[in-house]
């Protein structure tokens, strides 16, 4: 069994097949590219505002302003971005439904979207509004959001041909940690990551030939797990060693870190729809 929507909702096949012949799909179809641009622009607005809000909770970026002030200025753009991606997504989806119905990457994207909405409205926005304080409701939302995010990662991981897209999430996580860490932690972290990158290149380009998929696949997967452990380890060390700042503690930082990655994963799955 695959993880495509058709595997979970087989009884919807006839309805899905007809979607591009009825409103709104039939109207959107001739302007698919234009609506795609709208989807991309909404993603850009959401990306910029969400990244800045969550980086502020981590303790980097626009640190001259309080998280509350950031929220006051950026929340509207988060709303516009989220509404924009959902509305344009529904419209382009309705005109391209059969393609999405059979796509595992689409399943990962939808579960990721749910996790993103829960993390953004349940954690990021309330936490920035309260200057980094995470209330009990936000803690519940964080746990629910993380659980959904884990499911999204699992679905993405299961999506054959699309799962290399998970490298984007690992890369983004690595960059956030590099940006957030300071001093010795950053030096050790970057040195270790650099060594792992060199080792991976040697293994996949020198030790094994380019067409030796039987060895390349498990090697790349082993390195992916190695990177995940290294990056998360550094993130935990940073979150714990930086202590409780004026605007939230380790939990707030960890959830902000996850909230950025949720949107990166959702966007990556959306892009990998085109390849698998």
């Amino acid at each position: 069994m695959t993880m495509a929507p058709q595997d979970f909702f087989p009884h919807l096949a006839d309805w899905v097949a007809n979607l591009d012949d009825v409103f709104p799909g039939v109207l959107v179809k001739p302007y698919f590219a234009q609506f795609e641009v709208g989807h991309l622009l909404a993603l850009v607005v959401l990306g910029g505002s969400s990244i800045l809000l969550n980086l502020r909770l981590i303790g980097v970026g626009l640190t001259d302003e309080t998280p509350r002030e950031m929220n006051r200025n950026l929340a509207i753009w988060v709303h516009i971005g989220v509404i924009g991606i959902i509305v344009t997504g529904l419209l382009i989806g309705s005109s391209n439904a059969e393609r999405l119905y059979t796509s595992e990457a689409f399943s990962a994207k939808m579960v990721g979207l749910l996790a993103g909405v829960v993390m953004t409205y349940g954690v990021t926005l309330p936490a920035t509004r309260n200057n980094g304080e995470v209330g009990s409701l936000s803690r519940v939302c964080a746990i629910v959001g993380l659980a959904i995010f884990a499911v999204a990662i699992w679905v993405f991981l299961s999506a054959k041909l699309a799962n290399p897209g998970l490298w984007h999430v690992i890369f983004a996580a690595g960059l956030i940690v590099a940006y957030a860490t300071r001093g010795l932690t950053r030096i050790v972290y970057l040195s270790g990551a650099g060594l792992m990158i060199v080792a991976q290149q040697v293994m996949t380009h020198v030790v094994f030939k380019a067409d030796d998929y039987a060895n390349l696949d498990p090697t790349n997967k082993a390195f992916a797990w190695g990177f995940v452990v290294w990056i998360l380890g550094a993130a935990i060390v940073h979150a714990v060693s930086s202590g409780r700042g004026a605007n939230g503690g380790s939990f707030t930082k960890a959830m902000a870190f996850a909230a950025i990655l949720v949107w990166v994963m959702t966007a990556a799955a959306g892009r990998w729809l085109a390849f698998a």
Partner: protein
Amino acid sequence: MIRDFLVWMATEVGKGPGEYDPSWTDLLASSLNFWGLLEATHVLSLMLFAGTIFIVDLRLLGASFKQTPVSVISERILPLTIFGLVLMIATGVALFYAKPLLYYHNIWFRLKLIFLVIAAINIMIFHFRVQRNIADWDTLAKPPTKARLSAMISILSWILIITFGRFIAYDWYNCGKALPDWANAVQECQSSETGAVNLKGVAL
């Protein structure tokens, strides 16, 4: 001349001694996952680059962070923007390298390049002219007209760059299809591998 260079780059650079050995362009375009990773990284870096420059432009327009000095917004956010830009350019160049002739004869790619140049000139003008007396308006909720104009040009340019970038994937004006004369001329279709065909179906 540019086309000749691109043909050489696409067919000769990195090519082995054998007649059918692939060039680096062939290898990149036919890679199992690398091209996909490049393409998606290009889009994700756009989220970082355009998403953050948009916030800086909103401040210059006096629409956001009105109480924060412009210099603080620039100092804190622009490093992220520049990192996104570097990543976007690196992946963009690599994507171009994979299919140089396809992009060279594509009207949307050409429009995208024109607006990239406009955006770059706008950044230069802002950096060397508009920003020169930033101390006079750094803390103003509504910066002077020249700063707001620069921000407006920036936002519009990037919206158009994103739009044209997305349109590249569509074959509406691909050379070899029956096209209006202006489209064949703008894309230099006659020198393309598929040639130029006018709306009457006549090969030019």
